[in-house]
C-alpha cells in the first residue's frame, strides 16, 4: 500500500485543497506541504531497502486486468531519485506558493492542480506498468495545461498552455502507440520485465518504430530540440509552477523514460547516437539562446533546456561514467534550478522588475536572498565545491573517455565546454548581477522576501553545497541506485570533489574562464548569436507549430465549408450518389444475374395501368405548377390502389385510396400557402440530377429483378393462413396480422400517427416568441 498510497494521496488531497485554502487561508500552503514532506521522508526511509543492485519495493494491485492495466508500482533507484525530487521540491514549492500568491482568489485551485500534478508525477516515476505510466504521463500534461493557464484571463497564458498541451500531448500519444506495440511484441506490460526481453523486442520488425516513438514522446516532454519551444512559453505560468514543473520535475519525465528504457534499447545501433546528438543539439541551442535573454524566467527556461539536453546526452553516451554523470547532473540541476527559479520569483515579487539588465545592487536590500541565489548560481556555474561542479567534472570525464574512441567524442567535448561556459554566463546573470553594482530604481522598494519565499531557495541552494561536500550522505544514496538501475549493473560514482589536476578539471576551468569572458563581452556574443535566432524565428520549430496549427484549422474550414455547405440539395445529392454508387458497385461485383422467375406475360390492362402511373410520376416531376403536380401525384396514388386490387390486396387498396384522398386534400390546403413553382435550377444541374435519379431507378429496378427469383419459401404466410381463423378468429388475414400476429407494429404505427398529429398541431399553433432568455437556438 505504500507506493499506491503515496501516489493517490496527492489526488485525494487535491480534491479538498480549494476547501482547505478557504478554511486555512495563508497557512494552507504550509499545511499542504506536509504531505510531500511526509512522502519524501517516507521514501527516504526506504532508501536502504533498494540500495542493493536490483533491489526494489514492489507493489501490485488489480485495476483493469482485461486491458493489462494493473496498479503495479516499483520503487527502484531511479524511481527513488525522481520521487524524492518530486516530493522534496514539492514541499518547498507549496510553502513558496502560499507566500508568492498570497491573497489570490484562485490559489486553492492552484494547490489542487499542483497536488494533482504531484500525484501524477509520482505515478509516472513509480509505475511499473506501461499503460499505467501512460495514464499518469497524460495527467501530468493535463495538470501542466491547467497550471500554465493559471493567469487564464491573458491570451498569452492560454495559448502557451495549449501549446504545451498539444506538443506534450502528441508525444504522449506516441508513447501510447509505442506502449501498445511494445506490449504486443514483448507480451508483457510490465516495464521491469522488458529489459529481460530486449532481444525479443530487438528482433521484431516493430522495434525501430517503437524506439522512435518513445524517443519522440520523451523529447516532447523534456523539451528536446526541436520540440523545446513550448518550455519558454510555459513560463507564462506563475513562478512556483515554473520552478516545480518546468524546471525540476515534469520536464525530467522524458529523461526518466529514456533512462528507464535504455536497458531495453541500448543494444540498438540507433539508440545511442540519436540520444547523444539530440541531447547535444538541445544543450547547445538552449545555452546559445539562453544568453540572449534578459528577462529572469526565459533566461532560466533556456538554460533548463540546455541542462536537459546535457542529461539526455549523458544517457545517450550510455557508459557507466556517463550515466553516473547524468544522474548527478539531474540532481544538481534540480537543486540549483529550483532554487534559482524561486529566487527569481522572489526578486520579481519584491521588486516588480523582471529584467536582469534593469536590476542592480539589490544585495544590500536583500542579503539573504542574495546569499541563496549566489550559492545556487555557483552550483550552476560549476564552481568548486558545489554539486554542479561534481556533475560537470563527471560529465567531462565521461565525454573524454568516449572522445578517445573517435572524433565524435571530441566534438561532444567541445559542445559541452561551450554550453557549460554559457551556463556560467546565465548563472552570473541571475546569481550575481542583480545584486551587485549600482543600485537601480525598481517599481517596488526592495527588501528581503518573507520566510515563505526564502525557505525554498535557501534550502535547495544549501543542499547543492552540502551534497557536494558530504556526498556520502546526501548524494550517493540517491545517485548510485539510480545509475545502477539504468545500467542494470552496479554503479559506483566517484563523487569526491577533488581528483587532482587532470584534463577534466582543465576543461572545467576553461569553461569558467570562457564563461567569464563571454559575460563581459556579452553584447558582442549576442550579436554573434543573432543569425541562429533569425533562422529559428523564420523557420524554427515554433514557427512550424504555428503553421501546422493554422494549416489544420484552414484545412478544417475549407473541408467543412465544402462538405457542410448548407445547401440541402447538395446534401441530398451526395447522400444519394453515395447510395447509388455503393449499391451499383456491389451489384456489379456481387450481384450475379439470378434466374429470372417466370411470372407470366403481362396483360394489356396491366401495362396500361403501369403506364398511367408512370405518366403520373413524370407529370409530377416536370409539372410547371403545383396543382398539376398534385394531380400527377394523385394519379400515381390511385393507380397504385388499382394495382393493389389487381394483385389481391383489397385492404391495401382501400387504405391507399383513403390516404391518397387525404394527402391530396392536405396538399391543397398546405400548398395553398406556398408560392407556385419557379424554374430555379440551372440546366446542367438538371441533367446531372437526372443522371443520378436515373441511376437510382436502374439500380432499384435491377434489384427487383434479381431478388424476385430468390424466394425460398412462404413458411410465414402459410402459418398465417393456417392459424388466422382457428387461433386468431379472423378471416381477413391482413387485418389479423395487423391486430394480432404483428400488433406490435401497429402499436408503433399509431404512435407515429399521434406524434405526427402533435407535430402538425404544434407547428400550426406555436409562433416563435421574441428572443428571450429561455428561447434558445435559432440561426444567427
Amino acid at each position, binding site marked *: 500500500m505504500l507506493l499506491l498510497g503515496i501516489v493517490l494521496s496527492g489526488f485525494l488531497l487535491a480534491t479538498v485543497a480549494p476547501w482547505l485554502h478557504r478554511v486555512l487561508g495563508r497557512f494552507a500552503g504550509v499545511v499542504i506541504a506536509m504531505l510531500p514532506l511526509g512522502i519524501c521522508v517516507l521514501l527516504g526511509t526506504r532508501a536502504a531497502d533498494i540500495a542493493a543492485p536490483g533491489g526494489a519495493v514492489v507493489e501490485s494491485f488489480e485495476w483493469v486486468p482485461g486491458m493489462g492495466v494493473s496498479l503495479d508500482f516499483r520503487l527502484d533507484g531511479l524511481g527513488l531519485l525522481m520521487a524524492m525530487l518530486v516530493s522534496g521540491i514539492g514541499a518547498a514549492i507549496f510553502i513558496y506558493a502560499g507566500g508568492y500568491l498570497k491573497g489570490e482568489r484562485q490559489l486553492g485551485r492552484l494547490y489542487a492542480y499542483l497536488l494533482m500534478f504531484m500525484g501524477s508525477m509520482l505515478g509516472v516515476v513509480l509505475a511499473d506498468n506501461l499503460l499505467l505510466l501512460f495514464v499518469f504521463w497524460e495527467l501530468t500534461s493535463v495538470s501542466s495545461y491547467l497550471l500554465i493557464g493559471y493567469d487564464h484571463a491573458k491570451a498569452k497564458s492560454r495559448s502557451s498552455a495549449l501549446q504545451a498541451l498539444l506538443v506534450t500531448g502528441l508525444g504522449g500519444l506516441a508513447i501510447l502507440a509505442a506502449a501498445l506495440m511494445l506490449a504486443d511484441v514483448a507480451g508483457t506490460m510490465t516495464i521491469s520485465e522488458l529489459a529481460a526481453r530486449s532481444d525479443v523486442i530487438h528482433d521484431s520488425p516493430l522495434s525501430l518504430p517503437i524506439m522512435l516513438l518513445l524517443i519522440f514522446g520523451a523529447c516532447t516532454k523534456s523539451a528536446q530540440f526541436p520540440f523545446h519551444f513550448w518550455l519558454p512559453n510555459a513560463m507564462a505560468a506563475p513562478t512556483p509552477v515554473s520552478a516545480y514543473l518546468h524546471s525540476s520535475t515534469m520536464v525530467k519525465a522524458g529523461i526518466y523514460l529514456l533512462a528507464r528504457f535504455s536497458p531495453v534499447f541500448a543494444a540498438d545501433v540507433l539508440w545511442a547516437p540519436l540520444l547523444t546528438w539530440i541531447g547535444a543539439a538541445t544543450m547547445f541551442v538552449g545555452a546559445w539562446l539562453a544568453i540572449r535573454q534578459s528577462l529572469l524566467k526565459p533566461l532560466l527556461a533556456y538554460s533548463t533546456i540546455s541542462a536537459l539536453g546535457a542529461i539526455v546526452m549523458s544517457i545517450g553516451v550510455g557508459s557507466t561514467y556517463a550515466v553516473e554523470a547524468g544522474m548527478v547532473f539531474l540532481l544538481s540541476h534540480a537543486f540549483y534550478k529550483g532554487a534559482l527559479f524561486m529566487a527569481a520569483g522572489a526578486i520579481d515579487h519584491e521588486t516588480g522588475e523582471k529584467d536582469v539588465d534593469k536590476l542592480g545592487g539589490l544585495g544590500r536590500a536583500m542579503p539573504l536572498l542574495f546569499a541563496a541565489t549566489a550559492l545556487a548560481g555557483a552550483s550552476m556555474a560549476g564552481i568548486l565545491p558545489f554539486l554542479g561542479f561534481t556533475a560537470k567534472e563527471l560529465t567531462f570525464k565521461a565525454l573524454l573517455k568516449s572522445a578517445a574512441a573517435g572524433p565524435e567524442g571530441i566534438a561532444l567535448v567541445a559542445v559541452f565546454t561551450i554550453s557549460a561556459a554559457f551556463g556560467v554566463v546565465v548563472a552570473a546573470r541571475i546569481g550575481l548581477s542583480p545584486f551587485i553594482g549600482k543600485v537601480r530604481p525598481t517599481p517596488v522598494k526592495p527588501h528581503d522576501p518573507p520566510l515563505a519565499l526564502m525557505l525554498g531557495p535557501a534550502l535547495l541552494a544549501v543542499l547543492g553545497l552540502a551534497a557536494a561536500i558530504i556526498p556520502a550522505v546526501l548524494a550517493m544514496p540517491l545517485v548510485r541506485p539510480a545509475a545502477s538501475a539504468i545500467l542494470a549493473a552496479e554503479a559506483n560514482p566517484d563523487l569526491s570533489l577533488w581528483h587532482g589536476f587532470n584534463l577534466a578539471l582543465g576543461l572545467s576551468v576553461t569553461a569558467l574562464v570562457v564563461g567569464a569572458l563571454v559575460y563581459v563581452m556579452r553584447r558582442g556574443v549576442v550579436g554573434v548569436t543573432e543569425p541562429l535566432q533569425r533562422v529559428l524565428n523564420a523557420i524554427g520549430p515554433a514557427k512550424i507549430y504555428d503553421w501546422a496549427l493554422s494549416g489544420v484549422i484552414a484545412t478544417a474550414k475549407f473541408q467543412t465549408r465544402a462538405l457542410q455547405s448548407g445547401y440541402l440539395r447538395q446534401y441530398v445529392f451526395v447522400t444519394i450518389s453515395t447510395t447509388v454508387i455503393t449499391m451499383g458497385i456491389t451489384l456489379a461485383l456481387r450481384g450475379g444475374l439470378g434466374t429470372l422467375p417466370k411470372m407470366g406475360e403481362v396483360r394489356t390492362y396491366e401495362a396500361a395501368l403501369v403506364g398511367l402511373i408512370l405518366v403520373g410520376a413524370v407529370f409530377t416531376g416536370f409539372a410547371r405548377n403545383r396543382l398539376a403536380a398534385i394531380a400527377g401525384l394523385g394519379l400515381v396514388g390511385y393507380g397504385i390502389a388499382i394495382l393493389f386490387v389487381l394483385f389481391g390486396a383489397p385492404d391495401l387498396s382501400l387504405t391507399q385510396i383513403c390516404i391518397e384522398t387525404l394527402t391530396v386534400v392536405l396538399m391543397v390546403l398546405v400548398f395553398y400557402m406556398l408560392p407556385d413553382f419557379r424554374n430555379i435550377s440551372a440546366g446542367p444541374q438538371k441533367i446531372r440530377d437526372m443522371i443520378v435519379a436515373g441511376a437510382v431507378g436502374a439500380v432499384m429496378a435491377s434489384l427487383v429483378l434479381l431478388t424476385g427469383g430468390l424466394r425460398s419459401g412462404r413458411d410465414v404466410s402459410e402459418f398465417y393462413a393456417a392459424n388466422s381463423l382457428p387461433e386468431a378468429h379472423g378471416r381477413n388475414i391482413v387485418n389479423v396480422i395487423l391486430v394480432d400476429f404483428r400488433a406490435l407494429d401497429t402499436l408503433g*404505427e399509431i404512435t407515429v400517427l399521434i406524434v405526427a398529429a402533435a407535430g402538425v398541431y404544434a407547428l400550426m399553433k406555436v409562433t416563435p416568441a421574441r428572443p428571450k432568455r429561455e428561447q434558445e437556438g435559432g440561426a444567427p
Partner: protein
Amino acid sequence: MTLNVLLAILVGGLFAMGIYLMLRRSIVKLIMGLALLGHGANLLIFTSGGLVRARAPLIEEGETIPSAPFADPLPQALILTAIVISFGVLAFMMVLVSRAYRAVGTDDTDEFTGTDH
C-alpha cells in the same frame, strides 16, 4: 415482357422521379419527391414479396384456410403499416415546410443555409 420486368420498371421509374424531385431546390417538390419515394418503396415490397395474380388473403365463410392461390398477406400488412407511417410523416413534413417558408420567406432551399454557417 414478364410481369416482374414491368413492375421493376415501375418501381425504378417511381424511385427515379422521386429522387429527381428531391434534388430540386423547391421545398414543395422536395415533399412530392418523398411521396413518390414512399410509393416506390411500397411497390418494391409488394413486388419482391412475391407478386402473383391471386385472390386476396381472405378466408371465405365455411372455410378454415384461404383457397389457393392467395396473395402473401404479410407484405400487404407491412405495406399498410408503411403507408400509414409515411402519411404521418408526409403530413408533418408538409406543415413543417409551410412554416419554414413563412419563417425564411422563400421556398428555395438554397436560402435555408442559416444553420450551417
